[in-house]
């Protein structure tokens, strides 16, 4: 079997509700979505729910190659971008290609990716994540209650700008998830908004009221000494990694025991890269947790990671182009089925509709950093969030 062509679909998608965090608390309900399709001479098409124009730079590496040789293709792509590094647009394209190739590899065997990767337990523990600093208290409670009704007993809440409000909102999450369990696991995420000392001050205050499972990105992604300092001064685990690109980026974090939990994602050099990082962390007795992703396909990969805790799920409605995705959550687990590949099926009619819809505004891109980050807390501005 040979790779013969690819197609990149890029379209605007209006979400069911805005997503927001400490850097953009007002939220954003319009995104660019993309789908990469890699086509073979035998009619099997691999897809990835991401990708960008840089794919065309990689395509000569893939063309006429056997898609089952995904490791070798990954290696050639990594070596191709050596000088500039596996970063930025190149990085996003590389991840997309790798995911689409794994999708093909599983489809060739007529099996779901979890089986290709050697699992026979097609389920993955999940936690709910609002990514909704913009949500009102009622909306926040309603989101986590809905997830608790599906048995989800762990939740992550966006915080960072107002300690008193943050503590109140953590209480709301705790209360909502208490429907599922006596002691819900609570994670907090300040998205690199704090300095090291502000992180320690705030998390300690929060820990007086709540037992926190992990505190995510308390300081900047590369500040391994700062992350370690936070970890040494709080009870909660420090998690980080979602903004790192590949296994090499994790070197200083792991070598210096800077993080207690690693956030891993197939955006980090694809399925191949995610597995490398997880094995690296496994050697160091560090657990990993998979990030949210369009269509929840990370759950397939998680089934064969020995040190995986649970996967993030968000439900802003990013799957309008798909007739099928991995959305079956019950008893706190995402249950995977036997759909071949990564479990996503594109609905071409819906995709055409999305591509043809007239939207006269532009998605907020890139996601910038908020004023004061790492220095001081810049309070909510008037009407920045509707609940304040």
């Amino acid at each position, binding site marked *: 079997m040979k790779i013969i062509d690819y197609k990149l679909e890029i379209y605007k998608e209006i979400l069911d509700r805005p997503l927001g965090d400490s850097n953009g608390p007002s939220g954003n309900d319009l995104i660019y979505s993309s789908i990469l399709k890699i086509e073979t001479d035998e009619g099997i098409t691999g897809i990835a729910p991401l990708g960008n124009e840089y794919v065309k730079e990689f395509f000569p590496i893939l063309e006429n190659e056997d898609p089952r040789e995904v490791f*070798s293709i*990954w290696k050639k792509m990594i070596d191709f971008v050596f000088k500039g590094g596996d970063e930025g647009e190149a990085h996003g394209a590389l991840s997309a290609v790798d995911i689409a190739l794994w999708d093909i590899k599983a489809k060739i065997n007529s099996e779901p990716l979890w089986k290709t990767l050697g699992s026979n337990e097609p389920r993955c523990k999940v936690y709910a994540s609002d990514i909704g600093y913009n949500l009102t208290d009622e909306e926040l409670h309603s989101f986590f209650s809905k997830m608790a009704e599906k048995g989800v007993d762990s939740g992550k809440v966006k915080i960072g700008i107002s300690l008193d409000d943050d503590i109140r909102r953590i209480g709301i999450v705790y209360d909502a998830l208490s429907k599922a369990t006596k002691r819900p696991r609570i994670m907090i995420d300040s998205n690199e908004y704090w300095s090291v000392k502000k992180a320690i001050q705030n998390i300690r205050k929060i820990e007086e009221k709540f037992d926190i499972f992990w505190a995510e990105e308390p300081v900047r992604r590369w500040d391994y000494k700062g992350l370690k300092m936070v970890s040494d001064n709080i009870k909660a685990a420090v998690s980080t990694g979602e903004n790192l690109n590949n296994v*090499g980026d994790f070197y200083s974090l792991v*070598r210096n025991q800077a993080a207690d939990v690693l956030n891993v994602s197939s955006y980090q050099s694809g399925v191949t890269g995610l597995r490398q990082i997880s094995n690296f962390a496994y*050697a160091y007795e560090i657990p990993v947790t998979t990030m949210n992703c369009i269509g929840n396909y990370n759950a397939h990969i998680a089934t064969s990671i020995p040190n995986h805790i649970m996967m993030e799920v968000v439900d802003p409605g990013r799957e309008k182009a798909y007739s099928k995705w991995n959305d079956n959550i019950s008893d706190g687990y995402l249950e995977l089925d036997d759909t071949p590949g990564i479990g996503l099926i594109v609905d071409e009619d819906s995709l055409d509709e999305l591509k043809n819809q007239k939207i006269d505004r532009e998605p907020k891109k890139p996601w910038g950093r908020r004023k004061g980050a790492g220095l001081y807390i810049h309070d909510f501005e008037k009407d920045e969030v509707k609940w304040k």
Partner: protein
Amino acid sequence: MKITKIETTLFEYKLDRSMGDANSPMGRKKASGCVLELITDEGISGISIGGQNALPQINSIFDGILLNNDPKAIFSIWKRMVEKYFKGGHDGIANDAISAIDVALWDLKAKINEEPLWKTLGGNNNKVNVYASDIALPINDDDLFNWYSKMSDKFGFKGGKLKVGLDQESDLKRLELMHNALSKNCDDPILYVDSNEYWSPKQTIRNVSEMEERFTLGWIEEPARRWDFLGLKKVSDSLQTPVCAGENLDTLGDFLPYFHHRSADVIQVSHGMTGISGALQIADAAYALELPVTLGGSSGIIHAHIANAIPNCITVEVPHPEPETKVFTSDVTIKDGYAFVGNKPGMGIEVNYEELAKHKVEKVSQKAGPSPYGRRPGAGLYEIPPTKEEISEGQSK
């Protein structure tokens, strides 16, 4: 598809040379193996050569974990095997069993997909770097020179590994012989030396420093005990030569002190110790740490499949460039100093059942076991050169 049956057949065979290292200068003339076959309800079977000391453990894992399980679920099965031995640790004989089964499962998975293992692992059959490894401290200097000459002339090897440790004068002379034999084929052969934990760190530093005056070495292997992560690091800090270690470690966790302390410059893994699943994990961790990996000797050179899918593999050890026994054939060939892996499904190991019946044994004899002689006196303290009796036994045919 389900695993329904297991068959294990022990066999012994005569070696083509007297094999031994610093711990066994008297050598051994025979070796043993086990053909392990996992058979499915659809008639496809997965093969592994190994686990000859671990039959009770293999059978116990089969009854408790493999029977009626889907063979494609290698990760889940691996995890259950490892967790079964949690308390005692998956080391020693239990680890031999896990590793042998894991290899057979990977063979099976590739066969189910009707593809060679290198493709299942995502590789694309590039030629793989290899080096010749005599593992023959007992043989005399002429035989050593002739063996490496054959490796050079017939197979094109550009690197060789010498067993050293008991007699520095002799080691220096033999290093020269290996160098000269391999120089027929290339200007600058890579010379590896292996003292198999016979030396203390300081003995290593003294002896290898002297070698370094005359030769550039590819690595010094196991220059201190496997668990002595500070000793290994001290050796590395004191020599130009890279330190290679790991062949006697069983699991990813065993490597953690090496990783924390950067004790080794080259990480050695082998399917016999970690299975294929474990070897891939260790390679990933080493890759993250910018440490290269080398794969040890393997029956039928099946490590060439795995090397195809490891980003940081530098070279693969080859003690036998042609099959060492008639019991099985391999789809890996050595040519021009590289291993080439063929397209037969799975690992490409095919058992010759007539030969297997001829070589079959009920119990592996002590002299054909994997480590028949144990550790040699003087190890880690001072060198005791081979005695006349050891030399005489080692060089007898």
